[in-house]
């Protein structure tokens, strides 16, 4: 009961912070499981993939309601991300765990830097609407899928910049398309990790329920918090997580 409650609470904090700061679930779930609950890194990655599929479903439903999802663009780009997700999931067991931990640390540092830079460039950041670069976007999307398959993250960290900078989508539309595509990447990668027995199934329901609950609470809690302080505090926490992951 205690383990379930702590997973539920950890998930709720991850869901709350993820929704408040626009940080993907995997960036939080993998360190929570690996550093907080002592789960082996490959199993933490596999478990995260299952959980993130759930958050992608909930997020996509919300974005579809608001008419922000460009389904045709998502379908057109998905082949590249899927190929990346499949290849990375199959390759993951052949990579030393230390390499995966270091790559994950790099993702944490990048996410922290993104949060710290957000305040300096203002809300939403600069739009670089270039457009018409679908070929380049298609060639780069396997990186997003690869990040999913190898590190247990959604891949939005790679996907959203591709959608914004190469295809000229505005931020909220880029996030909406990415959220839908994340579900496709993570579900196929999760099936491969499940097949290898690298998913901690008893932890999935509590983490998933916690994350979804935390995300639902975010609008109410967010109004009472100083956004910039939260971003800086969370960036420091991510940097601490990066150091711990490197040493794990």
């Amino acid at each position, binding site marked *: 009961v205690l383990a379930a409650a702590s997973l539920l609470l950890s998930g709720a904090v991850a869901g709350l912070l993820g929704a408040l700061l626009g940080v993907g679930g995997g960036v939080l779930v993998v360190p929570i499981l690996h550093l907080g609950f002592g789960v082996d890194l490959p199993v933490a990655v596999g478990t995260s993939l299952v959980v993130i599929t759930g958050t992608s479903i909930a997020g996509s439903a919300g974005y579809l309601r608001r008419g922000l999802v460009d389904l045709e663009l998502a379908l057109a780009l998905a082949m590249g991300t899927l190929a990346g997700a499949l290849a990375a999931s199959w390759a993951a067991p052949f990579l030393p765990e230390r390499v995966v931990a270091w790559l994950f640390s790099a993702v944490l540092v990048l996410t922290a830097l993104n949060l710290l830079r957000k305040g300096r460039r203002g809300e939403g950041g600069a739009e670089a609407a270039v457009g018409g670069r679908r070929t380049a976007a298609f060639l780069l999307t396997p990186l997003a899928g690869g990040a999913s398959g190898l590190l247990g993250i959604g891949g939005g960290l790679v996907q959203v910049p591709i959608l914004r900078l190469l295809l000229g989508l505005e931020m909220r539309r880029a996030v909406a398309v990415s959220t839908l595509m994340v*579900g496709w990447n993570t579900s196929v990668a999760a099936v491969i990790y499940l097949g290898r027995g690298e998913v901690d199934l008893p932890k999935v329901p509590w983490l998933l329920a916690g994350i979804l609950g935390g995300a639902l609470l975010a609008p109410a809690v967010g109004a009472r918090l100083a956004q910039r302080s939260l971003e800086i505090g969370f960036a420091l926490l991510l940097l601490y997580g990066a150091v711990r992951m490197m040493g794990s």
Partner: protein
Amino acid sequence: VSLEARAPLLRRLLLAAGAAALAALLLSAFPLPAAGAFRTAGLALLLGAPWLVVLVCLGDAAARRAWGWVAVAAALLAVAALSLL
């Protein structure tokens, strides 16, 4: 009719499948006789739900005779099926 017209249906499908998956997975966490079945059903619903979107798009594109999109959606489903191997 564009694929975007299917957004309300897709939203309802995702919500229904996601809620059913979460309920089944939560039930699987309790010591019930059918816990294993709930876990399997929950995982299948959870990992299958994103693909409902592609299936609906495939059906919609076929109805519109938009064969290019039919090919794209079918190829995505085929690639996703590789994960089951």
